[in-house]
C-alpha cells in the first residue's frame, strides 16, 4: 500500500482549566489516502471537530497536543505557523458547518474566493477573476444570476454553502475537510450539496474527511468511517462492514436512537401504543471528569466488571478474516442491529 496522505498517530489534546485537566482527544489514530472518503461520526463534544481543527492547525494555543499528524511527510503537530499558513487553504481546506457565519459579511464572495488564489498561487487579479467565475460555475452558481460581486447576505443558506465549497476548492487542495457541511440545510438542498462534494472528489481525486452526526450521510458518502465517543475512536472500519455489523454498543445505540433506524421497522398498528425509540440513557461524561475505564460503561447495556476496570483499546475484531474493522470494546456485539 502506498503512503497515506494523512496519517494521524496517537493524537491527544488536553486543556488545563485551573486545577482540572480536560482530556479532549485521547489516542486518535487514523489514516486517509488520496481519493478516499472518510466519515467521522459522533455526538457533540466527542472530539470530531477538534480532530479536524487539529489537522487544520486551528486549535487555540493553550490546548496542548501530543502524538503526530503526518500530512504528506510533514508533522502538522510540530511545524511552525508560517509553514502551516502555506498548507492551510492551499493543500488542506475546510468547509465549515455554518455558512452564515463562516463567510465575511463585508467582503464580496468573489474577493473571498480569490483571496486564496492570489495569496497561495500568486495569480494576478485578472487570472483570479477568471478562476472565481469558473469555480462559481462548477459549484452550481451560474452567471448571470450569480457573480463574484455578490455579498453573502444576498444568498440563501445552500448558496452560501456552495460559496464555501468554491472557496475551499480554489487552490485545488489535496485534502478537503467538511465539518457538518449540510447540518444547517434543508434535505433537498443537503442532497444537492452532498452530490456536489461527491462529484468534486471524483473529479479532483482529493481526499475527503466528512464530519457528521448523521449515519445516513456517512453511509451514502464514505468508504471508511470512524465513530468517536468522549474523545476516543470507539469503532472504525469500512463503512459497509461497520453498517453490516456494528460492534461497539455505542455505535449500535446511536443507530437505534436515530429516527432513521426506527423508520426501517414496520409502522405501528393503528391505535396501538406508539413505538418508543431505543434511547441511550444518561449523558456523555464531562471532559474534565472522564473515567479511567471505558467511558461508555455507565450508559452501556452490555457492561460487565472488566469494563469498569480498564479502557478497552481499539483492536481489530476478526483478525482471521482480514477485515479492516476495529472496535474499542471488551464485549463487541455480533450480528445486525435489531432496529
Amino acid at each position, binding site marked *: 500500500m502506498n503512503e497515506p496522505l494523512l496519517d494521524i498517530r496517537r493524537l491527544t489534546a488536553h486543556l488545563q482549566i485551573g486545577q482540572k485537566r480536560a482530556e479532549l482527544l485521547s489516542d486518535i489514530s487514523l489514516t486517509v489516502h488520496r481519493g478516499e472518503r472518510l466519515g467521522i461520526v459522533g455526538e457533540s463534544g466527542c472530539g470530531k471537530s477538534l480532530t479536524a481543527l487539529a489537522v487544520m492547525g486551528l486549535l487555540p494555543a493553550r490546548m496542548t497536543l501530543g502524538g503526530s499528524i503526518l500530512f504528506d511527510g510533514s508533522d502538522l503537530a510540530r511545524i511552525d505557523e508560517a509553514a502551516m499558513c502555506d498548507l492551510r487553504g492551499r493543500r488542506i481546506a475546510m468547509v465549515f458547518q455554518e455558512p452564515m457565519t463562516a463567510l465575511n459579511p463585508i467582503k464580496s464572495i468573489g474577493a473571498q474566493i480569490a483571496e486564496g488564489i492570489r495569496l497561495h498561487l500568486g495569480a494576478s487579479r485578472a487570472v483570479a477573476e477568471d478562476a472565481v467565475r469558473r469555480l462559481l460555475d462548477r459549484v452550481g452558481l451560474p452567471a448571470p444570476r450569480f457573480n463574484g460581486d455578490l455579498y453573502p447576505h444576498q444568498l440563501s443558506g445552500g448558496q452560501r454553502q456552495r460559496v464555501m465549497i468554491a472557496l475551499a476548492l480554489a487552490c485545488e487542495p489535496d485534502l478537503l475537510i467538511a465539518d457538518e457541511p449540510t447540518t444547517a440545510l434543508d*434535505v433537498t*438542498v443537503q442532497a444537492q450539496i452532498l452530490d456536489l462534494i461527491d462529484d468534486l472528489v471524483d473529479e479532483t481525486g482529493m481526499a475527503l474527511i466528512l464530519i457528521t452526526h448523521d449515519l445516513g450521510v456517512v453511509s451514502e458518502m464514505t468508504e471508511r468511517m470512524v465513530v468517536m465517543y468522549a474523545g476516543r475512536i470507539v469503532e472504525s472500519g469500512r463503512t459497509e462492514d461497520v453498517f453490516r455489523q456494528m460492534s461497539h454498543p455505542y455505535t449500535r445505540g446511536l443507530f437505534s436512537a*436515530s*429516527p432513521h433506524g*426506527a423508520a426501517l421497522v414496520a409502522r405501528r398498528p393503528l391505535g396501538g401504543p*406508539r413505538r418508543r425509540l431505543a434511547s441511550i440513557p444518561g449523558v456523555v461524561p464531562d471532559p474534565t471528569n472522564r473515567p479511567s475505564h471505558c467511558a461508555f460503561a455507565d450508559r452501556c447495556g452490555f457492561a460487565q466488571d472488566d469494563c469498569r476496570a480498564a479502557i478497552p483499546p481499539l483492536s481489530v475484531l476478526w483478525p482471521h478474516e482480514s477485515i479492516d474493522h476495529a472496535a474499542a470494546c471488551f464485549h463487541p456485539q455480533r450480528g445486525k442491529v435489531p432496529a
Partner: protein
Amino acid sequence: MSTPLLEVRNVVRDYTLPRPSLFSRPVALRVLHGVSLTLGAGQSLGIVGESGSGKSTLARTVMALDRPQEGEVRIDGENLYALSRTDLRAARRKFQAIFQDPYGSLDPRHSVRRIISEPMRSLEAGQPGTSRSDRIGEVLDAVGLSPAAADKYPHEFSGGQRQRIAIARALVTRPALIVADEPVSALDVSVQAQVLNLMMDLQERFNLAYLFISHDLGVVRVITDRVAVIHLGRIVEEGPTGEVFDGPRHPYTQALVEAVPKPFAGRRQRGRSAKGHASVAASGAAGAGCPYEPQCPLAQPLCSMEAPALRLLAPEHSAACHFA
C-alpha cells in the same frame, strides 16, 4: 364527528415587505395561501417543509401570535381571532408551545421555578400559591427532573434537560394542544430520542395533541399520526404518516423523501436533481399554474396553466397534484 380540538380554516397570511422606494406601493409577500388543517384531541399532526415554506408562520398563527389576513383558527370550536383579550388569555391555557432553541427560549436570569410558574401567573391570575408549587413539582416529575431542579438556573442544565424544562413549562397549564416548533432539532441523536420518548409518554398520559413542526422526516415519522407537507405556503399532501412517507403521491413529497440520506443505502446512486431550488421571493409573482411546476420533474403543459387543488386520493390521504 364532534368538533375537532384544532381547526385551521383557509388561513392566509401576508407579510409586508420593505418598500423599494419611498414612493412605491408596499409589496406584500404571501406566506400562507389558504391553509386548512384539523387535529383531534390526543392526536399528533406533523408539518414538514423546507425553510421558508411557512411552517413557523403557521405555528405562530395557531398560537394566536400572528393574526392572519383571512381565515380562522378554532380551538375547541372557539375562533381565537374573534375572542376578546380576556377570553383569549383564558383560552391560551389550552394551547402551549415548545420552541427549537433550548438555550434561547429560557430566561437565563430566572430560576426554573419562576420559568415554569410564568404561564400560571400570567394566564391563571388569582390561584393560591400553594397549589402552584404543587403543580411545579408535578410537572417536573412528569418530565423526569427532580424537585430540586426548581431552584436551579437554566445554565446548570444540558440541552436535553433544558428542553425538558421547556416541556414542563408548556404542561403546567394542563393544555390540550402543544405546538412544538422543531423541538428536538438542536439536540444530539441520543438525547433527541430521550425527548421524543418523553413526548410520547406525556401524550398518552395527558391525552395531549401535538402540532409537530419539523424539517426532519425521520423525527416526524416517529412521533406523528398524520402529516401535512407544506410547500411555499400551501399544503401539497396530507395523510397518515406511514402512508405518506412510504407512498408519497405529490412529486414534492417524493423529492423530500428521496433526499433523506438513508443508512444501508450504500454509496450515493440517486438521480441527480437537474432543476434548481426555487426561492421564496420568486413565489410572490406566482402565475396561474402549480407553484411546484418550475421544479417538478413530471410537469405537463396543464401544470403551468392551472393550479391543482388538494383532492382526496385514498381515504384520509390527499395531494394537490393533477397527476398524483
